[in-house]
């Protein structure tokens, strides 16, 4: 049924957006952690 495709599209869109955002947060976190370590060594 065509309508079911829309439903799956909505669910996938939700997780895509959440996933991408979480990914950027985690990435920035890792980058900052490594910066912190570098600063701590000096």
């Amino acid at each position, binding site marked *: 049924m065509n*309508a079911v495709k*829309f439903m799956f599209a909505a669910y996938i869109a939700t997780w895509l957006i959440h996933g991408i955002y979480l990914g950027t947060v985690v990435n920035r976190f890792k980058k900052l952690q490594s910066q912190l370590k570098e*600063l701590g060594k000096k």
Partner: protein
Amino acid sequence: MKRAFTILSILTALLLAYGLYQALVVAPTERTMGDIQRIFYYHVPNAWTAFCLFTVNLIASVAYLITKKVKADALAVASAEVGVIFCTIVLVTGPIWARPVWGIWWTWDVRLTTTLVLWLIYVAYLVLRRFSDSAQTPVLAAVLAVFGALDVPLVYFSIWFFRTQHPQPVMGKGGSLDPQMLHAFLINLLAFSCFGAMVCWARYRLEMLHREVDELHALESLAGTDSVKPSMPLQRSSR
């Protein structure tokens, strides 16, 4: 603190998985709309979480204006950003739901329009934070949040009145809720609320870490070049 966060993350993941199962498998198919109605289990919880996050932003902004505490500002940033993400999902899933059901992508009904205006206000808030070169950006952003909060009731009220004059389809929940549907809905509501809290908390920690690193960078450049060792070792401030 870190353990609490890990526990919350695991709980959230479990709730989300259970919620997904409930929404797609357990909940019965709606009589008039069909399977497309299942979007409701995601659309409304995300909306609820977005509004909660924006409320957190308002409280944090006012708290910052009064106390000038850094933590309040960091929470304001975090809740605004995460709120925009959840709000985006509401604005994406809404039209995806409406198109097959009512044949239209968009309608200027009360809920959807208010959500759009909130999204616009908070995207403007984030742009202001990014583009402002003032040292007092947090104050400016907090003031904008207050203006936004004053605006939202007016938006809701004006569109509500407009709609009583020019009725059109309302993108609401369709009909009464069967207990299994209610159960699925509540699970997802709880799951996304926890998810929102978790992501906001993570973003808050990221913001605090960011400020800490900025501070240390500033201290480092004050202390001199790399070849010169500072007389006092750089210490991590305990928070």
